[in-house]
């Protein structure tokens, strides 16, 4: 408790608060604009925060992350277009509420329940992360290898259209992680004789390319290829004062309580599973809440319970994802994979040792997460009223801003043009992957996990004198290996089951 108070003193400094507010405002903008994702924003802003002290820099990134997940619900409610993938399920009941002339209430639920979910996630992080990290300290190379493999397989299992494409994306990520020095003998590998590649591919410029530039190229061809239609949010048509009341009354609060609990718990659990993100959490949270509700028939037609469940689920997911990322060093989703890169930029390697050696840093992150949720709770009601006009920002301005920030941001990290070329090539790769429906998450996850998996795999084999049975004879490792097999086989079983039904 004392450490948490010290951390609060650290994050309550005016400079840190200022950067946290800046991050929250940027996150509100990013989340509201359809097409911009939290992952993209964190990737682009990471080099910009390089120049700041860790608490201020992370204040910006954590502010953006939390606020953008919440703000994605604004366009989901007003336009029926999710601002970020995490808000897909918010369209189910949010937009029907707008059609019932209850836009204010829908936006208010989005603000209030997102904050409740976010704070619940942090509470669970506070309770679970330290024991989990202590437990993980007993892991050996075999366990770490199996855990890394499990993380990779989970992302592939939930990666959509084709397991083969998910696996290819993961293996391409692993191949990219091979560039540089061999993690055990420091032998240069696949650096094409270039000194620029001797330390490996720059992770942050590559992420900026894949998630920033790639998204711009992709959006340009998809948006310009469609007939232009002007969708105006309700507030824009009727005037912002006509949105109606935003706060739920006592009766509605009691009515939404079970959905809030279900959404919060589902979000944290899904978030903690490596590879699954806020989009999956909100969909599952909504479905669980619908199944247990007394008013099932209202779901999908403007149910305040349905909206409360999705809003709490997608924000509580952040606490779960952070728990896995910080306690085990395994990213929960694409954003946390990018955040690992940001942490490393500040010289901090997420994992169990961080809780032992840098617990003040962990508490600082907790403090920033709590404040970020309180900030968007305080500003979200006002921002939601005016977001309608903001959504109509011309796409070319948005795209070109991302384009130039991505290019100059990649350069600014090391003052190296080579990094900008890496970002550009990453952008082309990101475009092709989006276009031909290869999931992007496994590449980033594999880039992070590749060196961990390789180092621990080889160390374990050296310990066992080359006997691979070491991975199956240690209980924790065996559990993760079985989990990996299950994760990879589950899409095949599901497809077979679906085929039998049809």
């Amino acid at each position, binding site marked *: 408790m004392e450490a948490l108070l010290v951390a609060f003193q650290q994050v309550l400094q005016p400079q840190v608060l200022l950067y946290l507010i800046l991050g929250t405002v940027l996150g509100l903008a990013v989340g509201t604009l359809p097409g911009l994702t939290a992952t993209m924003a964190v990737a682009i802003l990471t080099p*910009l925060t390089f*120049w700041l002290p860790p608490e201020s820099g992370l204040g910006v990134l954590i502010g953006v992350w939390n606020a953008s997940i919440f703000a994605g619900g604004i366009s989901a409610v007003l336009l029926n277009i999710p601002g970020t993938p995490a808000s897909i399920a918010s369209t189910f009941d949010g937009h029907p509420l707008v059609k019932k002339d209850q836009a204010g209430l829908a936006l208010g639920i989005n603000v209030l329940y997102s904050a409740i979910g976010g704070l619940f996630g942090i509470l669970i992080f506070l309770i679970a992360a330290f024991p989990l990290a202590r437990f993980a300290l007993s892991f050996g190379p075999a366990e770490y290898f199996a855990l890394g493999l499990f993380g990779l397989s989970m992302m592939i299992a939930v990666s959509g*259209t*084709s397991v*083969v*494409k998910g*696996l*290819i994306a993961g*293996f*391409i990520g*692993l*191949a990219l992680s*091979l560039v540089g020095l*061999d993690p*055990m*003998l420091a*032998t240069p*590998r*696949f650096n094409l004789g270039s000194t620029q590649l001797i330390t490996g591919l720059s992770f942050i410029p590559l992420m900026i390319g894949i998630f920033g*530039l790639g998204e711009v*190229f992709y959006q*340009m*061809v*998809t948006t*310009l*290829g469609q007939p232009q239609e002007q969708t105006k949010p309700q507030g824009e048509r009727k005037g912002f004062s006509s949105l109606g009341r935003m706060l739920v009354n006592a009766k509605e609060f009691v009515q939404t309580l079970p959905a809030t609990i279900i959404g919060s718990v589902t979000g944290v659990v899904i978030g903690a599973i490596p590879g699954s993100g806020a989009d999956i959490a909100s969909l599952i949270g909504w479905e669980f809440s619908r199944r247990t509700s007394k008013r099932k028939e209202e779901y999908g037609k403007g149910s305040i319970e349905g909206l409360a469940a999705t809003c709490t689920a997608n924000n509580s997911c952040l606490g779960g994802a952070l728990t896995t990322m910080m306690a085990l060093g395994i990213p929960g989703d694409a954003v946390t994979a990018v955040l690992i890169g940001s942490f490393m930029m500040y010289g901090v390697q997420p994992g169990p040792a961080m809780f032992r050696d840098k617990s003040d840093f962990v508490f600082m992150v907790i403090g920033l997460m709590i404040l970020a949720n309180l900030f968007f709770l305080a500003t979200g009601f006002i921002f939601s009223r005016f977001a309608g006009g903001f959504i109509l920002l*011309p*796409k*070319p*301005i948005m*795209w*070109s*801003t991302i*384009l*130039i*920030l991505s*290019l*100059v941001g990649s*350069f*600014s990290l090391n*003052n190296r*043009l080579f990094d*900008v*070329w890496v970002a*550009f090539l990453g*952008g*082309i790769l990101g475009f092709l992957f989006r*276009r*031909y*429906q*290869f999931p992007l998450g496994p590449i980033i996850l594999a880039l992070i996990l590749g060196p961990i998996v*390789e180092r621990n*795999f*080889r160390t374990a*084999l*050296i310990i066992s*004198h*080359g006997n691979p049975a070491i991975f199956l004879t240690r209980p924790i490792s065996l559990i993760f290996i079985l989990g990996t097999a299950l994760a990879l086989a589950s899409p095949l079983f599901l497809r077979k089951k679906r085929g039998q039904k049809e």
Partner: protein
Amino acid sequence: MADFLFGVFTLALGMVIYWGANRLPGGVLTFALNPGFFPKIVAVGLMVLGAILAYQGWKNRQTYGEGKLSKELRLRLGALLGLVFLYLILWGNGSFLLNTLIFLFLSHIIMKYRVLPSLLSSTVITVLTWILFTQAFRVRLF
């Protein structure tokens, strides 16, 4: 057909990595210490998956992608990629402000934005980017 081509590319990538891994110095003590050990596993994985995707793509002759781009969109995308390429080639030559202004203005035109707002917004974005990086972050641009 796109899946077939991606499959063939993945297969070829796997072969190149395997070839590169074979050329790495041999390990000492055990095979697991060999720097080429893990790359070979990755290479085999890529070859197997590439072959599966190529087979699936050939058999179905369909892509999970979003169909072919129109000629106009291909041209616009090509022009934007070419513009970024040119901007990076010219990086360090001339003036950052002028290069970026022209780059952004032409980007807006490629993105079908009107000329006058393009000019105005390009100027604002260029100046703000310059101020942000050179004045706030003390990055030396050109």
